[in-house]
């Protein structure tokens, strides 16, 4: 079984409300046994309630796998970068340092790296990933590209220019439609 080619994961932090339903639900997947493989970050809480769900972007050429000295990170033919193989991972954290998106986390209790595998047990069986199923704001969405293009004004992007490096990912990031500057100090909205 593999993940259907026309089903994709779309991230849109502009919709995120920071509730952490994704983080908690990830831990509930039977194979995860109470441990979440994703995380959620405030960009800068002092300035804004803006949060970002951090799931694996599933790079076409994953840096995490390239730097792994134990060859513990494998990509399946359907483009999903799997979490570290338990028998191989030596807990060196090379992948944690190398990932351009800050995805993998080292788990000291297990001396292992663990990260999102796009809910492979679910998505390869035709179901949605847990995070995208529960997300109450559409910040993490699973579906066909044409559906997303029809419903939303934001446009999906999967090419990231990071310094001189160009990273192509399986997961799509929605970019704002027609956004200009965003004011985030409440004082700017008040009568003074």
């Amino acid at each position, binding site marked *: 079984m593999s993940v259907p080619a026309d089903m994709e994961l779309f991230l849109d932090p*502009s919709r995120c409300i920071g509730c952490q*339903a994704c983080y908690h639900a990830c831990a509930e997947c039977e194979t995860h046994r*109470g441990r979440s493989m994703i995380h959620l970050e405030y960009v800068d809480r002092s300035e804004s*309630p803006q949060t970002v769900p951090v799931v694996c972007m599933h790079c076409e050429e994953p840096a995490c796998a390239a730097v792994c000295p134990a060859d513990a990170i494998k990509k399946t033919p359907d483009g999903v970068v799997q979490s570290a193989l338990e028998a191989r991972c030596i807990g060196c954290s090379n992948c944690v340092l190398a990932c351009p998106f800050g995805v993998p986390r080292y788990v000291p209790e297990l001396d292992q790296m663990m990260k999102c595998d796009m809910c492979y047990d679910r998505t390869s069986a035709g179901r*949605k990933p847990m995070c995208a199923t529960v997300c*109450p704001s559409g910040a993490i969405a699973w579906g066909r590209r044409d559906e997303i293009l029809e*419903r939303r004004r934001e446009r999906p992007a999967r090419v990231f220019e990071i310094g001189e490096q160009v990273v192509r990912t399986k997961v799509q990031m929605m970019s704002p439609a027609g956004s200009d500057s965003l004011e985030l100090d409440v004082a700017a*909205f*008040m*009568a003074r």
Partner: protein
Amino acid sequence: MARAPEDVAALVRSYGPTLHHTPPGGWDAAGEPDALVKTHCCFCGVQCGIQLKVRNGAVVGFEPWEEFPVNRGMLCPKGVKRYLQGGHPDRLLSPLVRTPTGFREASWAEALDRVEQGIRNTQQAHGHDAMAVLSGASLTNEKAYLMGKFARVALRTRNIDYNGRLCMVAAGAANKLAFGIDRAANPWADIPLARCLIVAGANVGECFPILTDYLWRARDAGAKLIVIDPRITPIARNADLFLPVKPGRDSALMNGILHVCVQRGMVDRDFVARHTEGFDAVRRAVRDYTPERTAEIAGVPAASIVKAAELWGQAPTGMLLHARGIEHHTKGTENCLSCINLVLATGKIGRPGCGYGTLTGQGNGQGGREHGQRCNQLPGGRDIENPEHRRVVAERWGVAERELPGLGLASTEMREAIHRGEIRGLLALCFNPVVSLPDADYTRSALEKLDFFVAIDFFLSETARHADVVLPGSLQEEDGGTVTTAEGRVVRIREAVAPPGRARRDWEIVCDLARRFAPQEKFPYASSEEIFRELRELSRGGSCDYYGITYEKIEENHGVFWPCPSLEHPGTPRLFEGGRFHHPDGRARFHAVAYRPPAEDVDADYPVILTTGRVVSQYLSGSQTRRIGPLVEQYPEPLAELHPELAERCGLATGDRVRIASRRGEITLACNVVRTIRPDTVFVPYHWAGDQSINRLTLRALDPVSKIPEFKVCAVRLERAAEGAP
């Protein structure tokens, strides 16, 4: 006695709150669950569909229920982790009887004998009304109905009221006054059809998370979103227009927006003439609310007020939604009416994408206010002071109309009555007033004066600690019934597991007690469905007509919207279509509102406004969610949120401890310095107890119409706490 045991540490050791992280059976329990039960989340009025995973007679997890049309599998963290209440070490498994130092386990026979005796002693010495009943809006419709009947027929007391008094009564009162019926006017499905949305005092992202998707879908379709809130909440970040209203100034702001609509000719004259009464008085009332004057009162720029009116007035469709932010005020009802005035004047109601509603915060915030557990209400949304309504109910219950108790005290007035010695005994189910009522020290001293107090609860809440007898009741998933969601949809709650240990279903406990005070045939129920059958038959012809709703019909249709007057009737998702309102003449009523200031405004001694609210990971008084480890870890303790300008004046930075004092009490908390709140306001969430309870500072002042307290505004002063301050 009703004085809580002094050794709090011992109480916490025995009854929590303990942080629970692991499902019953542990993470390693393998294989398919024995059952997946399609039911609803117990937290908040959205009532998301969810499948509870059952193994070996315990709820061990969840699976999304993607077919349920409201949330389509979506959940918030409370929904994801709610199952951790099952198998919880704090769960009450036996009746408890108070000892000099704590509690001891007792048999049901002994516990019920003691309760019967406590009630009889109270009522024989001081009259029927000296025994009061507190119930709650997280109960099913069946239990809400039963509590009203229990109080009035078995205990024959007029004093029954519920915790919805802290929640949706201001909106409910406004709905009745304006529309002649108390229900949100639209299904959520109307939200994405609106081209302008005003969200006033509703932190949708944290309090009704899955409705965020509806707001974003509306924006995807081109809707303009106007958010009115003293804070940049997660949804305010994406608003097309953000109005950071000064707490307590909502009615002035609404009047100001309506003023501009009138000036610019954006009133729907045809709608007003054909379907409403009273607009002339409103037009006169808003005449003085020029953008400049309104700006001065409400603390938002005049240009933003004009812009709001333009966006709303010019949009072909629009919905106005609000929540506790405008309702928790001594003018809560007026605030809601000022919103309704704007909606009616622009004719934006009773059509697809047009409407109005309160977002009820409690699990059964809608249904809990319909079936007679309120001090002023009889089943079917009937009025306890209306002779015809009394006759209908008395006849069905087989009692003489004159024996049916009359108007009682609101739950927010009962403390005063206890302090006066009028109320001497109390039975509480689904209400944690020690945490949830304002001026918490006053609540505690009231409970301590009671001669007799019995609590029915699944965990020992801070309030139940005061009880003489505690009866172990049922979690939501341990009983069946119905709940009416915040959009008016009646849905089915399924019994996934049986109550553990010697705990029992709430309705069985209440019926057992009732039969000690009333003839058996008045409480003959063998199932919650039998209670529902009586409820729906008695609601027939009432304002909240459930007659055509059956359990089967709910199952077949993913819920049924009331009113549903016959078995063939499909239910009524959208109210007021064709401009037909529920007053006898079919017309809606305008109510002129003049702004008045909050009960306690800031002054030189207390110069900062305190406002309170929720965080996404906690629910109400926290009696359930403060025991769920992952939810507590998400936001472990209440933080004082304040703007850098205010923080600088007080010499505070993020992480510093700040002492906040009001005329009622003080609290010391860590602060979170953020640019997302007005510099004249400090925000503290209210889910915590004891030293962390912000309700020790809040004000007892009530809205004279609805008796809702003014949680959202009082005056405080801030100072940096010394290092190592508790």
